[in-house]
């Protein structure tokens, strides 16, 4: 898994590339925690290039999502597709996660809140 960060106005977009599994999901968690320390307030997690996620990956997303919720900051997860979408649907978390279709929609969603 490879993580890249880019910025659109005040929003930081994390592009996740590769599989999110037991052996690397913690890295996304660590990165977001580091960004929180640096007072980043608006996050978009782009899952466009994630084709596989296991329960640890879902776990990482839940952790990130609830931490950000607790701090009253903003997060949107976007471009969920394929088996990743299936897993999230199965675990009934589609409503739990703030989700948008594309990165642009995610940014708009954050701006609208």
């Amino acid at each position, binding site marked *: 898994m490879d993580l890249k960060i880019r910025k659109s106005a005040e929003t930081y977009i994390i592009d996740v590339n590769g599989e999110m599994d*037991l*052996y690397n999901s913690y890295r996304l968690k660590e990165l977001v925690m580091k960004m929180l320390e640096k007072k980043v307030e608006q996050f978009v997690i782009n899952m466009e290039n994630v084709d596989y996620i296991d329960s640890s990956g879902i776990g990482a997303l839940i952790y990130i999502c609830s931490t950000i919720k607790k701090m009253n900051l903003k997060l949107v997860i976007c471009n969920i597709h394929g088996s990743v979408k299936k897993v999230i649907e199965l675990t009934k978390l589609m409503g739990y996660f703030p989700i948008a279709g594309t990165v642009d929609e995610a940014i708009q969603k954050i701006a609208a809140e």
Partner: protein
Amino acid sequence: MADITQNFIFNPLWAQVFALLALYLTLRNITLSKKLVVGSDFQQLILVLFFGSILFAVLGLAGIPAYQLPVTLAVQAISAGIFLKILGRYTKKNYYAGWLLALNAVGFLISVTLAALQTAWFFHFWESALIVTNWGYVAYQFYEVSQYNTPKSGVLLDARGTLTKLTLWIHAVILLLVPFGGYQIPLVQMVLLPLSTLVYLWTLTFWHRRAYARMSHQRDLMEKNMNSQYEFMTRIGNAIAEKLDIDRVLDFVVHSAVKTANADGGAIFLVDEFDDVLRVKAVEGDFPPPYDVPAKVKLKANNLENFFKSTPIPLGETIIGECAATGKPIFVRDSKLDPRMVHNSRMDQIYIASLILTPLMQGKKVFGVLAIASRKSNHLFTREILGQIKTFGDYTSLTINSLYTYLQLLEKQEMERDLGIAAEIQGQLLPSHLPRVSSISLAAFSQPAKGVSGDYYDIINIRKGQILLTVCDVAGKGIPASLVMVMIRTITHLVARQPQMTVSRILDIVNWGIAGRVSLDRFATVAMLSYDFASHQLEYSNAAHHPLLIYRAEQDDFETLDTEGIPIGLERKTRYNQINTVLRKGDLIVLYTDGIIEAMNEKGQQYSLESLQVVIREHHQESPEKLKKLIIADLEKFVGKAKQHDDETFVLMRVEH
């Protein structure tokens, strides 16, 4: 012929030997002091012969008995030829002029012989031939000198080349004058002709000496370079061996770079992954910011240092940001001549005279910049130092990359050891035997991927005539996941037997007990059901697990049961629903985890719920134990040689009466 013999005999031999010896010693001193590297003893002997022949020719002209003139000329030609041959061996070049000279010498000797035999016709013939070879010789020398005298040859002979050309012109003019008897003038023959050869040889030798000096200088530099790099590599290796500390490696790198380049100071900047800025990481000596800073900051050294350390540099901005953005080394040899350093003035606190920046790369990604600076305008960095710092940078990149890989590997190893312990805990969790009752028959299967499971199932006799089945999938693996399993199991066992308990209530309590107590990413999906043998009532509650699969024997069809609810462990206040149904004889229920229906074959296809249903429908009349084996066999057949990537668990229950 008689003349030659006579001259030879009447020559005071001792004087000649003495003269040659004196020449030899003089030359030896010259060659030693000027490091004439081609000066092997043999070559010096040849030189002595050459100079000797000129000396004797001059003596002969002055009336002192010496060698016969043509013989002297022959000696000159032969010795110069051999000299060129030797020079050619050292410089790995072919001096064809040497062969032309040898040809010339043969001509001289033959002409002397013919003259002695007094055959006039042959004498003229050979003299003509001689002139032709002389022309060739002169022309060739012209060509050779013009070759050396170009920038392309790397050797500019300058004044020497011009002098050589001048003597060659004199030689050529003499040859032109031959028809008018110019060649017969003793002074011309004895002195001017050898002079042109002498200048030519001297030029070549000088060129060679310079080339050799340059080569040995480069070799010395390279050796020094190699030594410092070897030391650098050994010490960086030791630094890592002592402690796996990246900061220490960086400190060491700056220190070595500054020392090797004899710089005033150096620094390493690291790219901050998510801000797209560079931050100062390690500083050594006196390294002022190589860009303009506010005037206020410059006043105090303390301020300057704080400013430099606390102000990040955006990628692409300033000369350091440029180096990181382009991934290419930057060499500012002289800051006076570089437009990027215009802010730099000699009176300034932050004056830098010479600067080298080299990127630290991981693959194609720049993760930092190594920089060294000289603040003395009389000490500018050279290309050699640039090369060395580049090598330092490359090696540092390599080391840090391996260090990262190693740290990741360590982490993975720790994780694996953790998994081993977890597997042991799990061994204790699963029921050791299934309850035996006449109303139902049961079978259970659980196969962890990679030795440790995130899956857990349990079968509990709640009270007489009622049984509870649960299957759950905990996120993650290892000890934390096992602890969540322990918590689920403990709470379930504790509360399941209480009166008026329902499966949804059990899930509520399990969730309440776990949410907020374990890290949020340790959630679990849980499916739980209870079945009453007498009333045939089944209660089912689902915390985001797969729906319950029921095979209805009467209809020969499948039915799924599901309830709303997010996974266990996320939110304390979650309330779960439940759904009831009545089972009949022969009905079969299946609880499973996603590892079963998502099991993949080598083509990447999934086993799917449909395949599971096909096996169940076909063999529903078999005992659950037998059916279990058939399902496993079918699954294994489908998966083939593909690696199991997730835990596989299922529980079967059939109503017997």
